[in-house]
């Protein structure tokens, strides 16, 4: 049974994307993978995902500016920033711009699932 919910994951680390994909697909979520800002915007337009996980550091652009673009396309988009614990300034900036929430790496799956459970029925 498909949940029909779509999640866009943007991270330059393929291993991270693949892990997310294999983890989330177990909950019948459809995962769309993007390796950089270009792909992120393209796939966002194309698929209109329910949630976006966006790495705060991307190879071609910084994640915060991608967040800005996404929110311009769809102001109600639910974007979770993926950050390191130490990136406090970027976290704050992302929140100000309108990031839904952020998730710090490394990830505790128990906490992670609680965070997204609020926005997606699992």
């Amino acid at each position: 049974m498909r949940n029909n919910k779509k999640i866009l994951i943007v991270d330059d680390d393929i291993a991270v994307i693949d892990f997310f994909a294999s983890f989330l697909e177990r909950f019948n979520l459809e995962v769309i993978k993007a390796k950089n800002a270009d792909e992120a915007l393209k796939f966002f337009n194309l698929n209109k995902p329910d949630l976006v996980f966006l790495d705060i550091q991307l190879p071609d652009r910084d994640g915060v500016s991608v967040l800005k673009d996404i929110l311009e396309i769809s102001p109600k988009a639910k974007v979770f920033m993926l950050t390191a614990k130490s990136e406090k300034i970027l976290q704050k900036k992302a929140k100000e711009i309108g990031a839904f929430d952020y998730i710090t790496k490394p990830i505790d799956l128990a906490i992670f699932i609680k965070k997204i459970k609020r926005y997606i029925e699992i």
Partner: protein
Amino acid sequence: MRKILREYLEKTAKQTILIHRSDTLIKLILRTIVSKLNLEYAAMAIYDKNKDEYVIKISRTKGNFKIPPNFLKITKENPIVKYFTNKDFPSRKDHIFLDKISLLIKSKKIKRNPKLLRFLEDLKFTLLLYRARACIAGFFGKDLIGILFLGERKDKKKINDDDLAFLSVLSTDIVMSLKNAWLFEDLNYQIQKNKDLFLQTVLALASSIEAKDRYTRGHTERVVKYSLAIADVLKKYIKIQNYDKFKEDLRISALLHDIGKIGVPERILNKKKPLNVKDIEYIRKHPVIGADILEKIKDFKDIVLAVKHHHERYDGKGYPDGLKNKKIPLLASIIAIADAFDAMTTDRPYRKAFSLKEAVKEIKRNRKRQFSPLVVDSFLKAFPLDKNEESFNITHLGSRGS
């Protein structure tokens, strides 16, 4: 030094006490577990003391559950950690089996305890999130320092008691290896920070070496004592510049002269049979390994040389460099005699101790061969035998033995 230790690791993965790169060992162990138990994956979460949480550093997989290094963590709020560390939890064990938790949840007894039931359900859910069939705790004393995650068995068999015993051994290996790795990390940190703290750590390490070599217990302490006594006589013969520093360097070098034995396998140190060529080759590395460890400290230059050359011989037939005569640092020449004398007068795995008389005779015999004549003469003055030639006619040393 790293290379030597790694070579060692490859040969004897089990003797983890000597390994200061634990990653290699953990990878090896995870690979063994995954293939022996036919698991979908195995992963090791390791305590990070700066963040106060457990991070999955290494994993091995046969399936598609590939965990990128440092991507997943287990916080102290996570039910898995709580299960292992919460003292209130009634049946605390060092392992969790998903099947057993599922059974427990269904039991009537638990149904009457809603708080516990909720916790167990949470625990089960968390295990499922991590796709873990089982978790094995790695305790060092009371501290949980690692958690081993085991995925589904591909053959769908259950993990039995034999498997569990096997896993516990490996988990202990990992814990020991981590503990040692951390000791080394601390060591490096302290080098930058504080020489005294560094020394304490090195000494802690040294005493753990001594502890594993049961024939040399107390040896270091005696070598220090003998060395200092020799130096006090020697300074009357020759001018030693800045004698206070010389004596302090001598004390530290004598304390640390065998620190490199950290790289020598226990089975060789405690071998009862005569050593073979390979064993000797191993043992002969210890002065260089020791020097490598200590080299990082700036003002340890003389100490490093003393440790490195304490097995050189006056006639140039020693190791590692075959230095001759005055090329051998004075500190090293003193330790060489103190070391040899103590070795002769204590029982070894392969022979009984010499009597004092025999030992002194042996030292004399090796004057200008193994030992510097000047240092031999100082030694003889520092340790005059009494008339019976059964004990030393001295009081300043106190009693011998550990």
